[in-house]
């Protein structure tokens, strides 16, 4: 794949921002954007115009009952699946290996999963499942995470609670590729509803709704 020049990227910026750049060309431009801040700024400006065009369309009230039909079709909250529980057990073992504590005791006591455990399947912004989060309530609480396809850099965790309260926690440093991490957290996990993994710029890399 030949990386395009900045001039070539600027020529393609409008089509990229409008979402109509063909696949191969799009991949080349995106690769350039990972390394060129000036071109990222240029594409972002065009993306703002593309977004603003959508905001110009007239408002139209949908047919009667639309809201109730949408609510009736809401996706069910995912139930813990067997695979997710096995991965949670593996993650909890990682927690025990790193820090012992309550989670480690839970394993040695014969229970397969701690009593207050929080699990989330982590998805990338494009919807792919790329990891799992596991949280164990206790004194202290522990979190662990398996995450794939990560670029190098520092990651942070954002725990989302009801009412929109967000607790920011330091996460692992990624060397690139798969990230496995476990750590003690000094906040209660009770009620946590969602998890986000962000990079050093605060951009979301993965997120998921918590099941308990």
């Amino acid at each position, binding site marked *: 794949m030949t990386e395009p020049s900045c001039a070539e990227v600027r*020529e393609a*910026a*409008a*089509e990229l*921002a*409008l*979402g*109509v*750049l*063909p696949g191969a060309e799009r991949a080349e431009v995106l690769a350039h954007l990972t390394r060129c801040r000036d071109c990222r700024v240029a594409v972002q*400006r*065009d993306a*703002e*115009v*593309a*977004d*603003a*065009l*959508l*905001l*110009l*369309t*007239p*408002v*139209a*009230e*949908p*047919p009667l009952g*639309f*809201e109730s*039909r*949408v*609510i009736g*079709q*809401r*996706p069910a*909250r995912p139930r813990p699946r067997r695979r997710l529980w096995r991965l949670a057990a593996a993650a909890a073992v990682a927690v025990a290996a790193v820090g012992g504590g309550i989670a480690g005791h839970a394993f040695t006591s014969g229970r397969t999963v701690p009593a207050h455990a929080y699990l989330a399947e982590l*998805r*990338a*912004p494009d*919807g792919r499942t790329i990891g799992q989060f596991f949280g164990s309530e206790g004194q202290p609480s522990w979190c662990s995470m398996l995450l794939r396809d990560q670029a190098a850099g520092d990651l942070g965790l954002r725990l*989302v609670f*009801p*009412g*929109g309260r*967000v607790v920011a926690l330091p996460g692992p440093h990624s060397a690139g590729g798969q990230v496995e991490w476990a750590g003690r957290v000094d906040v209660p996990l009770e009620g946590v*509803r*969602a*998890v*986000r993994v962000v990079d050093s710029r*605060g*951009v*979301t890399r*993965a*997120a*998921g*709704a918590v099941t308990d």
Partner: protein
Amino acid sequence: MGLSDEALLAGLAAGDEASAAAFVRRYQGRVFGLAVTILGDAAAAEDVAQEAFTRAWRHAGVYDPRRATAATWILAITRNLAIDALRLRRAQPADPETIAAQLMPVPSPDDGAFPPDEAVRLRSALAALPDDQRRAIVLAAFGGQSAREIGEREGIPLGTAKTRIRAAMIKLRSAMTTAEQS
């Protein structure tokens, strides 16, 4: 005043039905309006609008307010679904001048998603574009047409189609930049 968009989306991510209902009420007019504009068919537009909110519910956990406002986020989902629906029906996008005309006279809703004076500037800039540039950017933005498809539709070379899209974008961007600076 209700909850912020971020609070509603956090509620969506947590599976809170009240947050979902509030989010639907807040944006159903914009979402359905965009779908109708693209598809020109109310029944198909309603299906797209429902799916857009379902997708929003499913992916609320990955919504990042640093990347987009809630309005542009849900409208981008809607636009992509509507274009997919067009392609599935093997339908051609509506006449771009018809779409452009629908964008013109209507004042923006006062929901804070887009400052009214900026909307006026963007509408004026769109109206002031040469006809061929306006058609090109409308076909791309609302029809999902690539430069190659626009070239085939308009009977022009690929390079000319690319130039028209780019030139239109430069003029519209300039109008928005002027709005920010004033």
